[in-house]
């Protein structure tokens, strides 16, 4: 991070000002020429191919198992594994590192796993006249039979202007997690609408203070609640166009629900990943709208709530009144193939394997597979584990209900929510009153990222 260090300059520039001006003039004479070559059959210019060369694969720690499964199944292909943070928590390391390789003109890995789902927006655009990082997959690099096997809408984050540029690792559709044992003990029925949910939240606050029906303390809160309420905060209408209207009735109804239940303390403003949350709410989570991966990350996790087997149930996404229910989505990783790869065949084989093969997606993967056939087997396996109190069909239902009015722009909605709305929630201020400020923050960020905002 010391690339540019003005302090040292500040002390030295005065002395070297004249020499500096001359050197700048000299540097200005040169410029880097990057030319993109002829387009190959897959829709991009291919590097010189070498079928025996090793492929370099970047994965996060959880996905090392995917590489191992691939190597066990394909011992003839040489794979070099590089572990990185998966670009998680807004670190943007995938994008950052590729930007540096773009500048250097070499060094790209062949396949990259990203825990984010908005990378296609930048990876499909070349910088400074160079070739975009992501290889187009739907022009023969990955068979169309494989692409069509993914769940409905699963490849939306990978699709830019009709082309597919990545494979989805897992889905993170939101469902209504609940504690079946507690619900029965308190004599409540499982809500099916947001109105019922709010009424139950208010009731819990009165009858069983200390118990909660959800959390709004995480950066992905808007993806769990606003997305599932069809709030038009993130409607990506074109490769560089977005429509933002955060003051619609759809946004306001959910904001009012949040305000009411936060005031009642049946929604907590603590992040589910804090020690404080675990301390205060172990055994006290009645309902919890959230992504599919909450099961393993929060409920069935010794480090977190550690709910005993036979208690946790999964309910379908909630609807507003008589509207059709829609689901939100929180993440779900993606696999990219580099358009600069010298061994596209092996890279494609790898990406196809880790997203579709039972040996990884069913046997090992912790999340709900994006590939439909694997997902069915994964659900069967989870049900067979005996941990859950109910069947898992709600997950499958929700997978097809993710609302498509919430897009995948290059900037992070989570980061915007975190810096504009989370402090308000913490300070006990109203979300409904500040929906306008949220919208302005989104529009500003979109404009800076080069989006046309409506």
């Amino acid at each position, binding site marked *: 991070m010391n690339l*540019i260090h*003005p*302090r040292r300059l*500040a002390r030295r520039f005065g002395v070297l000002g004249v020499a500096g001006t001359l050197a700048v003039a000299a540097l*200005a004479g040169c410029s880097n020429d990057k030319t993109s070559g002829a387009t190959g059959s897959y829709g991009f210019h291919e590097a010189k191919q070498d079928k025996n060369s090793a492929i370099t694969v970047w994965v996060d720690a959880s996905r090392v198992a995917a590489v191992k499964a691939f190597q066990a199944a394909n011992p003839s292909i040489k794979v070099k594994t590089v572990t990185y943070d998966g670009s998680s928590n807004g670190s943007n390391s995938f994008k950052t590192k590729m*930007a540096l390789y773009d500048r250097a003109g070499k060094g790209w890995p062949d396949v990259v796993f990203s825990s984010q789902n908005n990378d296609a927006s930048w990876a499909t655009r070349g*910088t400074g006249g160079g070739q975009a990082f992501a290889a187009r997959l739907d022009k023969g690099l990955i068979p169309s039979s494989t692409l069509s096997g993914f769940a409905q809408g699963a490849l939306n984050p990978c699709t830019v202007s009709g082309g597919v540029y990545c494979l989805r690792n897992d889905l993170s559709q939101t469902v209504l997690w609940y504690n079946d044992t507690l619900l029965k003990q308190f004599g409540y029925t499982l809500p099916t609408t947001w109105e019922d949910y709010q009424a139950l939240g208010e009731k819990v606050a009165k009858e069983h203070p200390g118990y909660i029906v959800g959390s709004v303390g995480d950066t992905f809160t808007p993806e769990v609640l606003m997305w599932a309420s069809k709030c038009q905060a993130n409607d990506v209408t074109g490769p560089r166009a977005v429509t933002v209207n955060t003051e619609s009735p759809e946004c306001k109804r959910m904001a009012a629900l949040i305000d009411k239940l936060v005031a009642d303390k049946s929604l907590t403003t603590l992040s589910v990943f804090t020690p404080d949350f675990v301390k205060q709410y172990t055994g006290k989570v009645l309902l919890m709208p959230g992504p599919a991966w909450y099961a393993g990350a929060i409920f069935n996790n010794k480090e977190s709530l550690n709910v005993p087997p036979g208690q946790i149930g999964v309910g379908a996404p909630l609807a507003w009144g008589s509207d059709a229910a829609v689901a939100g989505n929180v993440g779900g990783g993606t696999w990219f193939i580099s358009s600069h790869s010298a061994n596209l065949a092996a890279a494609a084989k790898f990406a196809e394997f880790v997203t579709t093969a039972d040996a990884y997606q069913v046997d090992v993967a912790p999340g709900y597979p994006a590939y439909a056939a694997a997902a069915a087997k994964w659900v069967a396996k989870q049900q067979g584990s005996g941990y859950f109190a109910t069947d898992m069909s709600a997950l499958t239902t929700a997978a097809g209900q993710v609302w498509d009015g919430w897009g995948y722009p290059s900037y992070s909605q989570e980061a915007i929510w975190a810096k504009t709305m989370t*402090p308000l929630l913490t300070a006990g201020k109203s979300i409904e009153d500040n929906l306008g400020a949220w919208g302005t923050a989104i529009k*500003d960020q979109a404009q800076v990222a080069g989006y046309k905002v409506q």
Partner: protein
Amino acid sequence: MIDLTSVQSAGSETPNRPAAGRVREDQVASSRPRRRPKRAAGVRSIGPFFVAPYVLFTLAFGVIPGLYAIYLAVTDAQGGFAPTANFTTVMGDFRFFAAARHVALFVGIWVVSLLVLVVFFAIVVHAIRVRWLSASARLFFYIPGALAGASSVMLWLFVLDPVASPVGPLLRALGFDSFPSVIQPTHLPVIFAIIAFWTGAGGWIVVMYGALNNIPDELMEAARIDGANPVQIALHIQLPLLRKWIAYMAVLSLAAGTQLFVEPSLLSQASNGVVPNDYSLNQLAYQYAFDLNDFNGSAAISVLLLLVALVLSAVFVAKGGLFETEDV
């Protein structure tokens, strides 16, 4: 990046050491002017040998990257000449003036508290006549500065979380019961100033202590004989004689402070983005380079920072008489 440790801790960064040494040498030389002509010619010829590594490092890590930044700032992504485009882009960014305000507020709070408290503590420690007490006080002040920048910020992540903090009861008494409530946006300039003060002030107290030792005993003696009490001595003898040192501290602190980066970056990661990752100007430059992939815009912000730091430093150099050569 705030790089206080490099300014103060022993030998962690070569280029800063000769700068500190140079000032000290000036002071020593100017207080004993007669010795200078007696120096042997051989001493002079070895000078360039000692200076050479400094010059090389300065060129490699200061001047050349700096010139590259200026080149990037006045060209576009294709390398064409664009003298103002990058500057208008970054200054039109909605985050630019917010970030500038954050940094200005932080630097204001931090530099003023640094100047006042460091001088105060140095004079107090210097006034302690008990040898072991004075020495242990200096060591006590210095210890936090010996931690590397990032690791001391990591330490503060725990201090600021009421659940894990050793001063948790104090935080709760102030009405903060969770980490997010401590790091509300309005608290941030003060929090960063406290962190920076804690990591950096100790080193400066030791430097100021050295400066106080440089004041001739006869002068202090004379003041005491004339009936000046310790407060009068501090105000009328020690403070005026410390002027250059204070200006020197202000210049380096300003330059370091305007580069606020490590504290907000780590807090941003730790708070899952509640502290934004574009809080300071240096972070914004980083965002330009690596999020927007706009190295030219990033360079433009850096050049603007350089200009501001240069102007402010020039003011302090002039007001503090840093380059004056008359006897102290």
